[in-house]
């Protein structure tokens, strides 16, 4: 036999020895046998609907926050050069306030700008937005404005 014939022979033998027929997955039988795991999986459907509602609400709140931030930043920049000139050399990034509402305030944005110029203001805004992401539900609109 040549090499090609040998390989074909070997493949045939392997098929004969290894191949035990195509196994078919019986979903109903599996669900009955592993009811707890399947129900755990299905239970996530309801919780994902709830989290979807939260996500929509969260997006609406974040949208409002972004709009407010843009208005605040624009106001700060157009107040006049004398008021908002940064004083001294730029300082490393630092959070100007602890809570998200405080971070949103004109005061903290202005402090950031005065310490580090536009870069610091940009970082402050980014930090604020980062803070809003996962915690948007914990901040009420009253706290924001």
């Amino acid at each position, binding site marked *: 036999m040549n090499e090609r014939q*040998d390989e074909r022979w070997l493949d045939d033998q392997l098929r004969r020895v290894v191949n035990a027929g*195509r196994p078919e997955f019986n979903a109903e039988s599996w669900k009955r046998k592993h009811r707890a795991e399947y129900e755990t999986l299905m239970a996530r459907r309801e919780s994902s609907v709830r989290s979807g509602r939260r996500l929509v609400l969260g997006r609406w709140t974040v949208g409002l926050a972004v709009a407010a931030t843009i208005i605040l930043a624009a106001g700060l920049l157009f107040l006049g050069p004398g008021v908002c000139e940064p004083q001294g050399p730029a300082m490393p990034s630092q959070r100007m306030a602890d809570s998200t509402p405080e971070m949103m305030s004109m005061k903290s944005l202005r402090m950031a700008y005065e310490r580090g110029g536009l870069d610091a203001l940009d970082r402050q805004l980014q930090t604020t937005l980062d803070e809003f992401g996962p915690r948007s539900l914990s901040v009420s609109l009253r706290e924001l404005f």
Partner: protein
Amino acid sequence: MQHRSDKLLVELAARGDGESFTELCRRYYAPMVAIGHAILGDRHLAEDAAQEAFAKAAAHLPGLRKTDQFGRWVAAICRNEAKDLARARRQPQMVDEAATERAVAAGRDEIGEAMKTALSQLAPEAREVVFLRFYDGLSYEQISAVLGISEQAINGRLRRAKERLAEDLRRQGFGEVAL
């Protein structure tokens, strides 16, 4: 029916879509049984291992970060399940008992027996790729999704496994086999 990607099915299943999870199970059942069979040498035990693997996958699906690598992930679970079953069984065999019985009933199958012995001598990774390829003619693409290696790498691994098998068969007296 439109073919939906593993990634989409995993994401839907993780949100509680049972049908999507069932589709994933159907898609990967044969490769999982092949992996289990390569370790356990028993079709029925291999099916048990595959089903247990899917049960664990259902319980831990939201923890899967690389949602496009479901096949590789469930294969790792299945290997562990099969090894646990093999340890519990204590006498792992590399051949299908029912198939052996059929062969014996039909008369002595020397080549088959020699092949089973040769298969049992292979390294686990090599035996696994042989089972995946010859169990039900799984495509290289399907094997790649399960092993997480390229089709070229699968080809190389399969080639080396067959050379090893041929060498073993020659040692057992089948001198004409040369790859």
